């Protein structure tokens, strides 16, 4: 019993120690430094996943691998350190109310980061003038969408994240069981990055040729959003009949096939997220610096349609639209080589983050804690000085 208590005490001291705080902060600084360097070769998205959204990682200096704790582990331990330290180290001290409040504020920052990591979506919606959409799509995550046209012209859609089949370690086809449709799917090949080319007679295609085209695998691009995934998919009817198709992130329409007299389509695309309203780009405006093609400012006039109501909103670079938990920022425009009079498009970055405003609240709490703590010290100091004189 005594041994257990002493181990508990040991753990308590460890997790509440200043030494652990300092070590974790140093590790955070190191991860930031190494992660920044690694972006040169691996790109932002990959490094973010490997260095900051991980428990462990191996950083290579030349051929030498250095194991390191990942950002999730370091920040998790730091949060525990703050919590336990706040309870244990300050338990018998007086007049620490302000410090505890500051701790709460910092923990709110951690919580905001955790919620952002686990329960947020981000992407973009790109619109030409006159276009309207009720979804935004990810920059990085792909999905396979099975579409079934309905009699009223709409589509029945079900989606599957490509993580379900994009890393078959055995290299074998991945069978995707289906429910509610008279076929199964088998992803026979998946490429993170590929080009689709027409098969010519004078060269051998490295992959199967489907309807005269084939997927030409490319090296993974460090800029993850540039990677254009492609997949060969077999549709296997219940009687064993197979139909093979090729789907690609950059194709302009899904692959259409028929099973049992019903028409279906498969679309490999960036993951889409529904918005609870429609956005229609009424007008995109920009003003260039004199005698240059560099815009001084640009903004989008959009109609936000919810049910039968619609209102006009201007989204500009520092004035996002906040609506129903989504934030729409003016991100970019194009085509970059557009000539005067050409039709332009506007890209709005869209973020759904339940903890969007938490950092602001956390900073207010921290400020209150600091004012409380140092205000009390100031008052005590002034009281002493007054008493002395």
């Amino acid at each position: 019993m005594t041994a257990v208590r002493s181990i508990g005490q040991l753990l308590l001291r460890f997790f509440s120690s200043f030494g652990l705080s300092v070590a974790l902060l140093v590790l955070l600084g190191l991860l930031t430094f190494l992660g920044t360097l690694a972006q040169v070769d691996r790109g932002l998205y990959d490094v973010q996943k490997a260095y900051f959204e991980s428990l462990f990682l191996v950083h290579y200096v030349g051929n030498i691998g250095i194991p390191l704790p990942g950002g999730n582990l370091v920040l998790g331990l730091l949060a525990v350190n703050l919590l336990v330290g706040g309870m244990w180290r300050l338990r018998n001290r007086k007049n620490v109310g302000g410090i505890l409040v500051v701790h709460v504020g910092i923990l709110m920052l951690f919580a905001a980061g955790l919620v952002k990591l686990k329960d947020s979506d981000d992407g973009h919606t790109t619109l030409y003038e006159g276009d309207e959409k009720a979804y935004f799509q990810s920059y990085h995550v792909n999905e396979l969408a099975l579409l079934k046209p309905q009699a009223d012209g709409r589509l029945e859609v079900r989606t599957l994240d490509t993580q379900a089949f994009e890393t078959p370690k055995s290299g074998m086809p991945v069978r995707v069981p289906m429910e509610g449709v008279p076929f199964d799917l088998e992803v026979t090949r998946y490429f993170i990055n590929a080009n689709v080319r027409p098969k010519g007679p004078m060269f051998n295609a490295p992959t199967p040729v489907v309807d005269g085209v084939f997927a030409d695998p490319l090296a993974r691009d460090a800029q993850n959003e540039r990677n254009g995934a492609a997949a060969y998919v077999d549709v296997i009817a219940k009687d064993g009949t197979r139909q093979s198709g090729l789907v690609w992130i950059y194709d302009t329409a899904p692959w259409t096939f028929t099973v049992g007299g019903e028409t279906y389509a498969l679309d490999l695309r960036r993951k889409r997220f529904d918005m609870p309203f429609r956005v229609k780009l009424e007008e995109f405006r920009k003003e260039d610096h004199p005698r240059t093609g560099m815009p001084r400012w640009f903004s989008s006039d959009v109609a936000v349609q919810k049910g039968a109501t619609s209102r006009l909103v201007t989204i500009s670079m520092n004035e996002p639209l906040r609506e129903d938990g989504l934030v729409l920022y003016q991100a970019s425009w194009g085509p970059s080589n557009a000539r005067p009079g050409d039709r332009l498009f506007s890209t709005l970055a869209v973020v759904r983050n339940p903890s969007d405003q938490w950092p602001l609240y956390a900073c207010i709490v921290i400020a209150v804690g600091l004012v409380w703590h140092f205000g009390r010290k100031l008052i005590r100091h002034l009281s002493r000085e007054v008493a002395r004189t």
Partner: protein
Amino acid sequence: MEALQRAWAAALVGATSLLVACGSNQESGWSEAKIVEPQGTRIGVSTAERFGMRPMGPVTGSAAAPADAFQFTLPPGWVDLKPTSMRLVNVGLADDASVECSLTLLGGDGGGLAANVDRWRAQLGLGPLSAGEHEDLPAATLLGKPAVRFDATGTYTGMGGPARENFRMIGLLSVAAEGSGFLKFTGPAEVLERESANFDTFAASLRAASAPSASDSAASASAATPAAAGAPETAGANSRDGLVWESPAGWQRGPDRSMRTVTYFSGPGGEVECYVAVLGGDGGGLKSNLDRWRQQMGAAPLTAAELAALERIPSLGGDAVLIEVPGSYRGMSNEQVEDALMLGAMALESVGGAPERAVFVKLIGPRNLAEAERASFRQFVASLGSE
């Protein structure tokens, strides 16, 4: 102070709960079905359009046989796959996707029987047969026409993809000047050993949809020729980009490509490609273009005497300069064929003495197959005119 500590403990519990809740946010499997507006999604779009190629223009004649142009009896365990532009019949095994069986038809002799047999052997990593061995190939029947039976095992590379060892190929080749048919069955040797009899049954059942079955009458032998069975015929007048031309019999029109007016394929497996491209003005000049083609074949630039000696035939209201370059072909996409032949033609259209546009016709393929298309190529070039 105790109240503060209790609040602190509550914060610890709350944070732990948050961690657990967020950690359990895993997505797996298909999402629930939902009904959405199309929002620009188009169903039923052709492959060419999906991948950014121009939609094909009108073609006189039928570019490919309809999917139901043939009738056959599928052996047990076999499945009917979707026909492609070259595979007019496309079947396989339900339990083994590596096994393929397809029928290809051509309008001509496809380069001849021996060349095609040796080409199939080359796909298995085997050397060509001697003249005597060619003569000893067993006789068979395909679509009611005399054929030979091919059967060999080796390391299969086919038209692309990784080499597959211990693959067997069984095939029937019916080669004739008026039309040829090729039925090809490939797969792992042990599987084909098991399915060999089924292949024979399948081949015997294969007939044109309009022809009577083999069991109906002896007349089937004359009715189901490859040409009658829906061999691709694109012969006829065509036009695009201000050009008109007659496409030779047996040439298969391919998907449209950027920078090209039209692309055709010929040869037993579509190995020979011929296309037309148009550039404004003089297109960079005759010699520089011909030298560029020669460079693709590993040949030295033309001398002035060689350039002057090149044959010219009437085309586009003037003359087209013809060139033939044998050699090792290396194209712009780094594709390479060791023993290839290029047939090229360049013609200039002028208005008021100034060149208005340059028309290039280029045919490239394995030497033996490209040579077989020489007459068709010349006919094609000569048929070019302005709209």
